[in-house]
């Protein structure tokens, strides 16, 4: 059964300046301006953040579950890739 709804957009909200936008959900909208407004109305009612990104869902490319083995397991046992041998100063965290 085909989806007769308006195009789907994924919504990302940034809580504070400098930190990454977080995926919070999706909205249906006819175009970019309405997507931004719909996202603002649905996902920022409780002062969740200061910036919104909306992305048409069909422009997002996602890895598939079958890829997990080849994509992600090899990084499980490569300790030399982790910066564990020095301490990161506190103030650097959100630079």
């Amino acid at each position, binding site marked *: 059964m085909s989806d007769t709804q308006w195009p789907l957009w994924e919504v990302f909200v940034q809580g504070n300046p400098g930190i990454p936008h977080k995926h919070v959900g999706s909205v249906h*909208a006819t175009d970019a*301006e309405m997507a931004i*407004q719909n996202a*603002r*109305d649905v996902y920022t009612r409780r002062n969740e953040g200061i910036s919104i990104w909306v992305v048409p869902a069909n422009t997002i490319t996602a890895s598939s579950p079958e890829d997990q083995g080849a994509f992600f397991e090899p990084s499980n046992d490569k300790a030399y890739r982790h910066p564990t041998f020095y301490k990161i100063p506190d103030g650097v965290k959100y630079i």
Partner: protein
Amino acid sequence: MDIQQAKFEYLLRLGDSSLIIGHRLSEWCGHGPILEEDIALINIALDFVGNANSLLTYAAQVEGKNRTADDLAYLRNERDYRNLLLTELPNGDYAYTLARQFLYDVYTFYLYEALKNSKDDTIAAIAVKSHKEITYHLRHTTEWIYRLGDGTAESHQRLQTAFNDIWMYVPDLFDMDAVDQLLINEGIAVDLDSIKNSWNKRVNEVILEATLLIPTTAIKQKGSREGKHSEHLGFLLAEMQCIARSYPGARW
């Protein structure tokens, strides 16, 4: 009439308009055309009711007869309300609701922008906060006017019909009387003539851009300043007030 009495009247005009249109929009709750728009409308409704609460709380204080904002909202009769006629019109279809909302949003955009300069500090503070909300309301309704006007043949026709039908209530927006004059002289109220041009310009721009025609009508409905309302207000108040009147003094 002294300044306090005039201020009370003026605050009722502002507060009642917000209350009544907030109530009309709340009638869409659960019935919006799509989920996102349902939420958008109730957000806007809540903005208006919050604004009404601030204004009517201040009005009760200015009146000085120990009434509360709730007393004003739920225990007055039609003739005591001062909301603009436009705000009490029934929701109709979505085009009708948006046409009404757009004309009111342009009006409050310029009105509250000017009210930020009121010599009454409370009114100015309320205006600063409300104007941010109104800026968003106007952006939202404007985009809908464009999409419905410059949309399908059906949406275009419904929106044109809506504007044609409600145009007769525009003169009531800019009506002024002795209350306005007294408060304008005190620097408290806004001279509505000064925002009329901005209102006309913005409304015309958007309507034409939406490929619609600017309506004309010889009928000029007025009277809200004296509490003379359309046949719709009574029914609205019956619904809005019935719980408060059935259970006097009830608490949640």
